[in-house]
């Protein structure tokens, strides 16, 4: 029996506290397109990074054309015929097209780079792909679609047998997507195997031969595309994961406390309108990159926005920077708490105090004992596991770091709290504690904006869910027993 082009067998990968991949198998045949599907955090990018040599698996085997390969670094991966076209592209924008295509493997004549030959070969590739790109211009002058094609051309000149495309269509227009499909068909005719990662189910059904579904680090199922319907696909993606019991919510929702009107920011989101009531937990669902984080950051003042109005308690407020946000009793627990939420090298106490120094100082002089006392109260209240207030923030576990961030904002007396992916990277027990905290807060009358990619979590925690797709509100759903993850996902996918 002829060997498969690519076999990844029983791949396992753990990061501290998280099982990213559990015994995942992936098979790819010559001249076939395999769609790799799954929610955010399912493990797709981890699996591809292992194939690309960027990280090493804890266990498992990779066979290319029947031979076991140990891929220690990206160069080895490349040598074995694997090319990965990342979402952000790996081009050096200031260099010319042909320079990028032959980067690291420049063609030389007598010790000098033979630009003429490079350009000629580049044009050959472009002809094969049926496109017309001038190899002499800098890549930053190309459109996104053209840059993508340059990446593909580069993969071809590397004699890649396996090409992985990560969300290729996310940045293309309809016409360009059609062109991409055509190119993929041509590649397939050359016996190249393609792994196609995407959320766009219609495309997947159109272009792929097989589909592999990942969920929570496990491979759940694989199908031949022609044997599956879209509905079945969605069901499989969502599935029944280990269910977390979400704490019972008792919501007491009062009047409107925040209203956003015609909120827009070019390239990020447009015409966002919604309102939040006191005591409400408003969830925001959507795919990665749909614009939710950008919206939240603009509301808080972390980033600017182009147009729109914000009303708090029915009065217009102007938010230009975080200081304005804090002044208006809004706070944001960022997506990346390590980079943006905490000063890791400073003590927990110092982190706690930072937005609240006015509370612990008279004139300009700090009263440290007041600060310590207040911090200790929070440590007790929200049960932060910490040896002493002076412990360095870096050394806390993920969940406790998140609680530390929460403590600092609670002290600032914010009544609108924005959570952006609050339970990312936190274990099950930690997640539970955070859910309970959020419930307590909303019960006390705080209003919560809750952004999450975990559909189960959003349904479990929110009173109402707004679904964002490509920067626009696509749906607004009330949460009741009938609401399913499939409902949300189908709206989120567009």
């Amino acid at each position, binding site marked *: 029996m002829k060997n498969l082009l690519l076999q990844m067998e029983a791949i396992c990968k753990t990061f501290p506290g998280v099982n990213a991949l559990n015994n995942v198998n992936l098979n790819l045949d010559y001249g076939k397109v395999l769609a790799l599907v799954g929610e955010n955090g399912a493990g797709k990018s981890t699996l591809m990074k292992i194939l690309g040599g960027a990280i090493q698996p804890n266990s498992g085997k990779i066979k290319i054309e029947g031979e076991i390969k140990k891929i220690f670094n990206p160069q080895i991966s490349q040598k074995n015929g694997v090319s990965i076209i990342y979402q952000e592209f790996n081009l050096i924008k200031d260099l010319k097209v042909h320079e990028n295509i032959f980067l690291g493997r420049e063609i030389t004549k007598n010790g000098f780079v033979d630009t003429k030959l490079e350009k000629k070969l580049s044009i050959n590739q472009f002809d094969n792909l049926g496109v017309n790109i001038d190899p002499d211009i800098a890549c930053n002058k190309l459109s996104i679609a053209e840059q993508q094609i340059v990446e593909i051309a580069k993969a071809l000149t590397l004699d890649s047998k396996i090409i992985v495309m990560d969300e290729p269509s996310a940045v293309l227009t309809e016409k360009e997507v059609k062109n991409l499909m055509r190119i993929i068909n041509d590649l397939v005719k050359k016996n190249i195997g393609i792994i196609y990662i995407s959320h766009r189910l219609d495309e997947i059904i159109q272009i792929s031969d097989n589909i592999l579904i990942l969920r929570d680090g496990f491979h759940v199922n694989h199908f031949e595309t022609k044997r599956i319907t879209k509905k079945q696909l969605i069901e499989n993606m969502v599935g029944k994961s280990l269910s977390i019991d979400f704490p019972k919510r008792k919501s007491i929702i009062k009047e409107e406390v925040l209203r956003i009107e015609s909120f827009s920011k070019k390239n990020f989101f447009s015409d966002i309108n919604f309102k939040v009531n006191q005591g409400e937990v408003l969830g925001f669902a959507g795919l990665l990159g749909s614009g939710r984080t950008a919206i939240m950051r603009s509301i*808080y003042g*972390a980033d600017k926005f182009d147009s729109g109005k914000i009303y708090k308690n029915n009065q217009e407020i102007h938010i230009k*920077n*975080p*200081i304005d*946000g*804090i002044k208006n009793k809004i706070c*944001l627990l*960022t997506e990346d708490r390590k*980079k*943006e*939420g*905490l*000063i*890791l*090298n*400073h003590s927990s106490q*110092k982190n706690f*105090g*930072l*937005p609240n*120094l*006015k509370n612990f*100082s008279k004139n*300009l*002089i*700090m009263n*440290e004992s007041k600060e310590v006392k207040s911090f200790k109260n929070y440590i007790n209240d929200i049960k932060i596991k910490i040896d002493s207030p002076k412990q360095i923030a870096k050394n806390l576990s993920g969940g406790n770091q998140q609680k530390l961030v929460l403590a*600092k904002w609670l002290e*600032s007396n914010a009544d609108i709290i924005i959570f952006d992916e609050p339970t990312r990277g936190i274990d099950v027990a930690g997640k539970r504690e955070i859910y309970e905290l959020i419930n307590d807060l909303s019960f006390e009358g705080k209003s919560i904006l809750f952004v999450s990619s975990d559909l189960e979590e959003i349904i479990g925690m929110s009173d109402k869910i707004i679904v964002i797709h490509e920067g626009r509100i696509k749906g607004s759903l009330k949460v009741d027993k009938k609401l399913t993850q499939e409902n949300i996902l189908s709206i989120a996918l567009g």
Partner: protein
Amino acid sequence: MKKFINNYGMVFILAALCVLFSFLTLKEQTPDSKNILNQFIEKVKSFEKNEIIILCVGGKNTKSAEIAMELEISLKQMGFSNSSSVVGTPADLKKKLIKMMENSNYPNFIIMNKQISTWNVLESLKKDNIIYGSTEEFFPKSNLFPDFLKKTNLIAIVDRIVVIAILAIGMTFVIITGGIDLSVGSLIAVSAVVGTSIMKSMGGVNASADIVFIGFVLGILSTMIIGCIGGFIVAFFKVPSFITTLAIMLIGRGLAFMITDGFSIYQVPESLIWLGQASSFGLPNTVIFLIILYLIAHFFLSRTRIGRYIYAVGGNEEAARLSGVPVNFIKIFVFLICGFTAGLGGCIQASQLNSGTPNMGIMYELYVIAAVVVGGTTLSGGSGKILGTLIGVFVISVIQNGMNLIGIESYTQQVVLGLVILIAVVIDKSKSHNFFVQFFNKIG
């Protein structure tokens, strides 16, 4: 205790250096008059007190001068009636001896010390055949004491480093926020030159102390404005502080030369030297000033809101911004402070040199940054203590002073100092990355 070592560990190095240099500068020192007296009496106990003629010699302005005069009095009191002393230069000694010869009163004993022993007066007189008769030079046994620990030397250690130490305060502020200021050396010159120019034009040598004060204020103001501009460019135009302050360094140096046309300004009031050279309460004014400034700075950084903000900006600028810290204001503030301390340093240096010259402070930024880093402040920002900087400053001063005391050649000194800075920075990096642990793991 562990925290103390982490923050102020350099203090042990400083102590070790002091011990080292004390050891290396052990020298025979002149004992006090009582000691000499006892030794001498022991020596001449077989003689009749009235019969011997004794001369005590002391060098002008030195400790031996006091001793010589004290000895004369004590000897007379003890019955050695024919005792006299001479204090001054070798020429004075020569004159005294010739006079004593003329009065047939030539000394039997001359009480010496180490400095006097290099004087050649007796040999010279003998060569000119002016002396006849024998005289014995009495050398009291001396005790060993390190030159390093002499009071005058300890004060000199602080005095010489005062300007660098003051600049280091502002530099610490800037480095904690993750920036750097290369312009401080040339700002010294700017402040000194502006200040002394004002003093010169407002009366020159005859101006009052108020004029000195005005000159100082305007000098410091000028560097504060420059610092402010630099901070503004760094904060709002996001130009890295390295380049910004490098450019200001060139501009500042050029300005100083432009203002003075290359000359030094020495038409300055007499009261100018008060700040840099006079003493109060037994300590040089500069030392008192230094102590006060460091206490204020330490309090400011560790106990005020702005101090907290400064550490936050250096620790994680984006997280600080998102926590409501006024990042841009803080950045401008620290460069303002740095300009202020540079201006202050310029005033003190002008006072120490009693003039304003445009080539003051060349390369000082290097020593200032070295002192800050040696003192434990990391260049990447977010941590560091002012008192640590003070220790770093002293480490450098002690090394420079010690090398001078031992007599190490100029260029060797430069090599040693450069090595110190290099090693300090390496240790600094290894603290944050456990570099040596990894390194030794790799090879081990």
